[in-house]
């Protein structure tokens, strides 16, 4: 006996999604702006390779006829423009599509601030991104001030999916410890973090139930809570968040940083090491104080 298989109709799925892209905002005079860009690319070769870039022309307001030449000159620098932002314009089919209604990326999850090499200023313990970098990117971002590393830029540069509470754990080819996103924004790690592992969470707080080993690091846009001993590095408020805090049951950390302000093991020696502490910013100073 045979049965006819039921005919399946597959529906086509359309979904709206938001993605994070880098926005370049050229300014007049364009030749000088391109020089600045070249200089910046010279410092960070390959930074734009493979990254989707939106060209914001609302400042420059060029003629439509000049846009193709500008895009070509960016293309020659390895920058692929996949959309153009220009109010009230209508572009031909040979140009990338127009985007509108852009929202600025904020720290609560949308944009991981493009990593810049933090140049640590030993005197203040604060690192400051060069103006060059600030110009090359979209103007409105706060200047990066973290004791950064390139790994972060790598992870941050990935397209983050919005609304999914996406977790990016970069673990240097090492284990991804068991990760649970408790609710949007909070990353819960139930296993200890081993030496060499790196947890990058650009969408909020990180809670670690075990210990954080020496030679590992946690980078979060929000606060970091460690219920074991913190022996590695903890970098909270990595994308600019003055109210982020770090809590740990026992502070043996190599480095603690909040919103770019950091302190090292040496500086904490004899003051707050070995204790249950919290670290937070107070009058632009990083305070590491015992709990209770």
């Amino acid at each position, binding site marked *: 006996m045979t049965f006819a298989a039921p005919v399946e109709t597959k529906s086509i799925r359309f979904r709206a999604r938001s993605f994070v892209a880098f926005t370049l905002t050229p300014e007049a005079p364009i030749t000088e702006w391109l020089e600045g860009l070249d200089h910046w690319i010279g410092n960070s070769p390959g930074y734009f390779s493979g990254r989707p870039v939106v060209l914001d022309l609302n400042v420059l307001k060029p003629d439509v006829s000049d846009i193709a030449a500008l895009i070509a000159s960016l293309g020659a620098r390895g920058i692929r423009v996949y959309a153009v932002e220009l109010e009230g314009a209508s572009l031909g089919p040979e140009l990338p599509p127009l985007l509108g209604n852009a929202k600025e990326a904020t720290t609560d999850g949308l944009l991981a601030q493009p990593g810049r090499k933090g140049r640590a200023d030993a005197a203040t313990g604060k690192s400051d991104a060069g103006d060059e970098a600030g110009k090359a990117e979209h103007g409105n971002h706060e200047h990066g001030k973290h004791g950064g590393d390139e790994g972060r830029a790598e992870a941050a540069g990935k397209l983050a999916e919005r609304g999914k509470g996406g977790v990016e754990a970069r673990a240097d080819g*090492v*284990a*991804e410890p068991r990760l649970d996103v408790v609710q949007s924004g909070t990353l819960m790690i139930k*296993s200890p973090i081993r030496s060499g592992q790196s947890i990058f969470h650009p969408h909020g707080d990180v809670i670690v139930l075990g210990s954080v080993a*020496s*030679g590992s690091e946690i980078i979060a846009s929000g606060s970091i809570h460690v219920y074991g001993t913190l022996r590695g590095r903890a970098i909270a408020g990595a994308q600019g968040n003055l109210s982020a805090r770090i809590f740990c049951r026992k502070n043996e950390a190599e480095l603690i940083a909040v919103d770019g302000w950091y302190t090292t093991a040496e500086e904490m020696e004899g003051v707050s090491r070995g204790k249950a502490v919290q670290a937070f910013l107070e009058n632009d100073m990083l305070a590491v104080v015992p709990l209770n």
Partner: protein
Amino acid sequence: MGKVVVVTSGKGGVGKTTSTAALGAAVAKTGKKVALVDFDVGLRNLDLIMGAERRVVFDLVNVIQGTAKLSQALIRDKRVETLFLLPASQTRDKDALTEEGVGEVIEKLRSVFDYVFCDSPAGIERGAQLAMRFADEAVIVTNPEVSSVRDSDRIIGLLDARTMRAEHGEHIAKHVLVTRYDAARAARGEMLSIDDVLEILSVPLLGIIPESQDVLRASNLGSPVTLSEPLNAAAKAYLESARRLEGEDLPVVVPFERKGFLDRLLGRRAA
């Protein structure tokens, strides 16, 4: 199906090879069929410690490349007849190992032996990763020193990421074996305490092997300490560790300094 146990550490010189030989011999003495596989291609040592260096004809690389059969390369121990050694090649380097080749060899060994001990090279590179790749369990050899403990922590991270079991979402059983524990130095606070080591690594303890000249002597004479001097304190610790590895529930006693203990007794008597 046998169990594949990788003996690893990250750091060199902590006693991986010595521990592989001692644990393997201890398990084999109970009648289990045991194979010891040396993964340290280019810097092999297990053959020396097992006293089999003059009987090596074929090695792991020959088996992987198909120039020798596994049965030809396995060397039977002269003291314990259920103990076998698969030596590494001294003339090649770690690139001679392929994942498929290692996998095939391990699968064959697993089907014949009760226990397969893989002696990992130091480091976290290819050789070490292939040694742990197909393991069911891991013995992490650690000295009570900060550098050794941190390297072990790194290796545990790799065990949880790069092994076949971990990639299939399965659990890989891990045990810490603390070697070269010097009770006198520990008492003076010059070494990490066992509690510190376990707190940092958060992995169950398999055993504590006291620092002992007898272990070094046995290694140089080509005999695992568990075979040549089974009454020695270090040998006893290895024998107990082997029983724990087989699932027995034995309490671990932290070695204390005998002399100090006797002194205290004598002191009390004198008083």
